[in-house]
């Protein structure tokens, strides 16, 4: 049995006094494509952000390749790791955001190159080669020197995905990457994600695109009020939901 890629053990997160993750347990193997579904406010985004240490969490552990993320526990005392160590761990995961979050003052190629140069310590020339390769993969070779403001939403999101993937992460996190897009631009982004899935990229994707989750994922996780209520094979789950909650959720979403 190989070591899991990602483990969450009793993950707890609160904003002030409000608990939004109430003990999330989940194990993910390399190569899995897991879709996370659930109603608004159920904690999907928060969970992804904890994995990438964009949020602090107060309880439980997150392990990537067996390595504890974000916190050390020595003799029962929990301490946040150093900023440098956390930065290194963040590079283990790539993240694509709902709002793209491209660096507006850098061209598409420079967006991809920045992490390669600053984090991977590549030379500019090496980084440029890698950046062009990945921009090619997301169908944007011709746009390498365009700035974010000169790109459509779908193109920006593809640059953002290229920027994350180019860092060669162990795991990709996608947070509703198509929700901010005009409907006609959704397809091109989903196509890119599908391609990555087919190549064996491990990914966790929060999505409201039920049809896409159904087609692309090896497993679906249904979250509600800060816990995982149900998980399993998408075909099983969508056709025969095991809980009343999921049945309701599927009815209210666009999936049919």
């Amino acid at each position, binding site marked *: 049995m190989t070591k899991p890629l990602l483990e969450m053990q009793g993950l707890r997160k609160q904003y002030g006094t409000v608990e939004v993750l109430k003990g999330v347990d989940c194990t993910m193997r390399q190569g899995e494509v897991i879709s996370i579904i659930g109603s608004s406010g159920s904690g999907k985004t928060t969970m992804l952000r904890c994995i*990438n*240490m964009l949020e602090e969490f107060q309880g439980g552990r997150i392990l990537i390749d067996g390595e504890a993320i974000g916190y050390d526990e020595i003799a029962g005392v929990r301490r946040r790791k150093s900023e440098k160590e956390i*930065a290194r761990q963040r590079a283990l995961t*790539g993240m694509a955001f709902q709002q793209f*979050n*491209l660096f507006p*003052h850098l061209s598409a190629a420079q967006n991809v190159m920045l*992490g390669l140069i600053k984090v991977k310590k590549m030379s500019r020339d090496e980084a440029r080669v890698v950046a062009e390769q990945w921009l090619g993969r997301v169908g944007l070779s011709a746009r390498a020197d365009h700035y974010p403001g000169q790109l459509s939403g779908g193109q920006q999101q593809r640059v953002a995905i290229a920027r994350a993937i180019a860092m060669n992460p162990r795991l990709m996190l996608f947070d509703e990457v198509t929700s901010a897009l005009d409907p006609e631009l959704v397809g091109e982004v989903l196509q890119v994600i599908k391609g990555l899935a087919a190549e064996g990229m491990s990914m966790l994707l929060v999505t409201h695109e039920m049809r896409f989750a159904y087609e692309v994922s090896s497993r679906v996780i249904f979250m509600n009020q800060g816990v995982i209520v149900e998980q399993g094979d998408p075909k099983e789950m969508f056709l025969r939901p095991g809980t009343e909650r999921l049945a309701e959720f599927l009815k209210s979403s666009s999936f049919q």
Partner: protein
Amino acid sequence: MGYTLNFAAVWRSFDLLLGGLLLSLELAAVALVIGAAIGLVVAFALAGGPAFLRRPAQLYVTVIRNLPILVLILFTYFALPQLGIRLDKNPSFVLTLAIYAGAYLAEVFRAGLLSVPRGVKEAGLAIGLTPMQIRTSLVVPLMIRNVLPSLSSTLISLFKDTSLAAAIAVPELTFEARKINVETFRVIEVWTVTSALYVVTCAVLAALMRLIERRLAIPK
């Protein structure tokens, strides 16, 4: 009116005025550079620094902004030596102007820092940049673009404020003009030419800054 204009005396001393003008520019430029460095550090302390840095930063900004600059100039030049800190008049003035500019620029930069979208910083974190790399590669470049217009007007204010250095006999433009005035009595001519030099130089500075703004503008 018995006053007939005669610029000859002024033209004879024109190189003195130009020398003064160059010194004024130099004082303003050095003060801007040092002031911007101070302002940047203070702005980071103001916008989300820990309390032990934020408090002194707030105190600095409040005190300086509530002091007339002339008082600050005289204080540095006359009072500091009593405390054992002795500076020549040029460095003394530049230091004063830089400290003064720093307090104003800190506020300008602070607003600029707040205008950098959180998502951009988070995207930087997500690819593994350290907080310091995010500051140098993302936050400062974006902030600078936002504040360039304010930076431009600060530079022009500083340039004009260099005329106050005349109070401690720094030989900048206003000081030289007053000297020529006293020596030649061509009052109207001297102050007309001096005013023209200030106005034209400010216009040139503004044009230069607009050029830089255009250079740094993000293509849309």
